[in-house]
C-alpha cells in the first residue's frame, strides 16, 4: 500500500464483506434448508438452522425414487467419471506434449494443430454427431461413453508443453550422456519434475469431470449410470408438485461439497493450476 487512507481502508473491507456475503448467501440458505423438515420449508424459508440435518442426510443417502438410481450410486458414478477423465486427460496430454517438445518428426505441426482444434469444438456444438459416433461404437450407457469423448485436452497439452520448454536442455543432454533413452528420461527425470503441475491440473480436471451435465445426459439412458448432476436436475425439475426442498437442498449441498473442499483445501495449488493453464 502506498499511503494510509483510513476511509479507503474501511471501504475496502466493506466491499469485500459485501462480496463475501453475496457470494455465500445462496449456499448459506441451502445449508440452512438442509437442517429443516419438508413441512417447515413449505411454509417459509428459514434463516436459522433447525434440527433435521442428520435426518435429511440419511433420507438423501437412502433416497431412491422411481426413475432415479439410489443417491450413493450417483455419487459413485460421478466420482468414477471425474477420476477417469482426470487421469486419462493427464496421461494422454503429458505424452503428446512430450512428443511435440522432445522429438522432431513429419506431421509434428499437423498433430499440434489437430490438438489445438479441440479447444474450438466444445461438446455443446457437436452434440448429435458425437452422440451418433458413441452410439455406433456401442458405448452408450457405459463409463467408456461417459468419459472417453471428453478426455482430449488441448489446455493440458499446452500447459505441459509450456512447462517442458522451461526444463533446461542440459538435463536431457546429461541424461543422454549417461545412456538414458527417451523413455527412461521421461520416467526418471521429466515426470518427477512435473509433479506440481500434474497435481494442480488434477484439481482443475477433477472439477471439470464432476460438473459435467450435458454429456452424461445424452449418453446415459439407464439409471445405473446416472451422475449426480443429472439426478439433481431431475429432483428439482418436477414442476407439478411442490418440490421436496429439504431433500433437494441436502442433495445439492452434498453434491457440491467434494469439489469445493478440494478447492478450499488446496487453494494455492488450485490457483496456480488455474492461472497457468489458461494463460
Amino acid at each position: 500500500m502506498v499511503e494510509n487512507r483510513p476511509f479507503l481502508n474501511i471501504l475496502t473491507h466493506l466491499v469485500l464483506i459485501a462480496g463475501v456475503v453475496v457470494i455465500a448467501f445462496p449456499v448459506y440458505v441451502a445449508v440452512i434448508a438442509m437442517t429443516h423438515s419438508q413441512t417447515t420449508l413449505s411454509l417459509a424459508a428459514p434463516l436459522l438452522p433447525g434440527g433435521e440435518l442428520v435426518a435429511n442426510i440419511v433420507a438423501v443417502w437412502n433416497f431412491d425414487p422411481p426413475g432415479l438410481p439410489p443417491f450413493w450410486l450417483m455419487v459413485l458414478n460421478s466420482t468414477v467419471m471425474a477420476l477417469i477423465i482426470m487421469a486419462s486427460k493427464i496421461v494422454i496430454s503429458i505424452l503428446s506434449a512430450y512428443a511435440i517438445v522432445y522429438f522432431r518428426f513429419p506431421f509434428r505441426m499437423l498433430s499440434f494443430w489437430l490438438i489445438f482444434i479441440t479447444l474450438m469444438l466444445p461438446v455443446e456444438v457437436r452434440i448429435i454427431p458425437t452422440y451418433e459416433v458413441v452410439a455406433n461404437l456401442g458405448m452408450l450407457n457405459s463409463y467408456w461413453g461417459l468419459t472417453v469423448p471428453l478426455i482430449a485436452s488441448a489446455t493440458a497439452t499446452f500447459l505441459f508443453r509450456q512447462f517442458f520448454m522451461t526444463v533446461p536442455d542440459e538435463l536431457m543432454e546429461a541424461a543422454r550422456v549417461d545412456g538414458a533413452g527417451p523413455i527412461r528420461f521421461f520416467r526418471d527425470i521429466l515426470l518427477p519434475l512435473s509433479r506440481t503441475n500434474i497435481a494442480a491440473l488434477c484439481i482443475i480436471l477433477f472439477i471439470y469431470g464432476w460438473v459435467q451435465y450435458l454429456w452424461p445426459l445424452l449418453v446415459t439412458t439407464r439409471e445405473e449410470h446416472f451422475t449426480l448432476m443429472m439426478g439433481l436436475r431431475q429432483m428439482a425439475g418436477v414442476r407439478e408438485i411442490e418440490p421436496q426442498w429439504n431433500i433437494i437442498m441436502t442433495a445439492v449441498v452434498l453434491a457440491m461439497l467434494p469439489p469445493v473442499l478440494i478447492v478450499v483445501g488446496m487453494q494455492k495449488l488450485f490457483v496456480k493450476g488455474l492461472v497457468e493453464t489458461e494463460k
Partner: protein
Amino acid sequence: MESKRTIFQSKVLPYFLLAPQLVVTLIFFIWPASQAVRSSFERADPFGLSTQFVGLTHYLRLLQDPLYLASVGRTALFAVAVTAIVMVVALTLAVAVSRAVRTAQAYTTLLVWPYAVSPVVAGILWWFLFNSATGILVYMLRYVGIGWNHNLNPTQAMIFIIVAAAWKQISYNFLFFVAGLQSIPNSLIEAAAIDGAGPFKRFRTIVFPLLSPTTFFLFIINVNYVMFDTFGIIAATTSGGPNQATNILVYKVYQDGFVGLNLGASSAQSVILMVFVILLTFVQFRFVERQVQY
C-alpha cells in the same frame, strides 16, 4: 513452432506417444464436427433411410426464422449482461483484496470456491432463493412491492439466469484479476503517488490500462462461458421458458436436435456456433501472441 535444441532421435516413438490423444481427437472431435457440417447441407427423409443435398436451405431458413433470430438477440443480451456484471464485480473485489494485505488470503478463500460449483447446482441454488412459494428473495421483493414469478414473467426469467450465471463466474474472473494486479510493478504506482495522483486517478490512468491483457482475456473466456457453459443452469431451471424467454442458442441446438429431432436445422445451428467459437479462439490467440512480443 519451437522444440528443444537437442532432441531424441526416434522415428516411431513420437507417433506412439501422440496416438492416444490424436485418436480421441479424430474420433470424437474432428469426425463429428465434419458430420455436423455435412448434415447441415442435407435433408433426411422421416425414416432416416436416405438423404438429399439441399445446399444452404437450412441456413437460409434459420436466418428467416423469427424464433432463431430472437434466440440470437437473447443470447447477445444474456452474454453482455453476464459479462459486464461479472467483470465489474470481480475487478472491484480484486482491487479491494490487493489493498487488504493482511487479510487477503482469508478473503480469497471465501471468494474462490464457487468455481467448483457446477452450473446445475448454481441454477438450483438460485431457483430455491427465487421460487415463488417460499423463496427468500421473492419474499424480500414482495416487501418492496415487486411480484416475482420467473415461471410466468419472461423478463424476470432472464434476470434470474443472468444472476445465477454471473454468480458462478465471479470467482474465476476474480482470481485472474488478482493475478493481473500482482504483476503490475509497485514502483509505477509509487511514482504516480509521489507525483500526486490519488488512488482513483492511479487506478484509472495506470492500473486499469496495464490490466487490459487480463481484461481482454477474461472477456473472451466469459463470452465463451455464457454461450456454452450456462447450458446446465438453464436445463436445471427454466428449460428455456417461459415462452422461449431463456432459450439461448446452445439450449436451442439441444432442443431442436435432441428433443425435436430436426437434425438438419440443429446441425446448421451447430455449425454457426462452431464458426463463432473458432473466431473467438483466433482473436484470443492473435492477441496473446501480440502480447508476448513486447
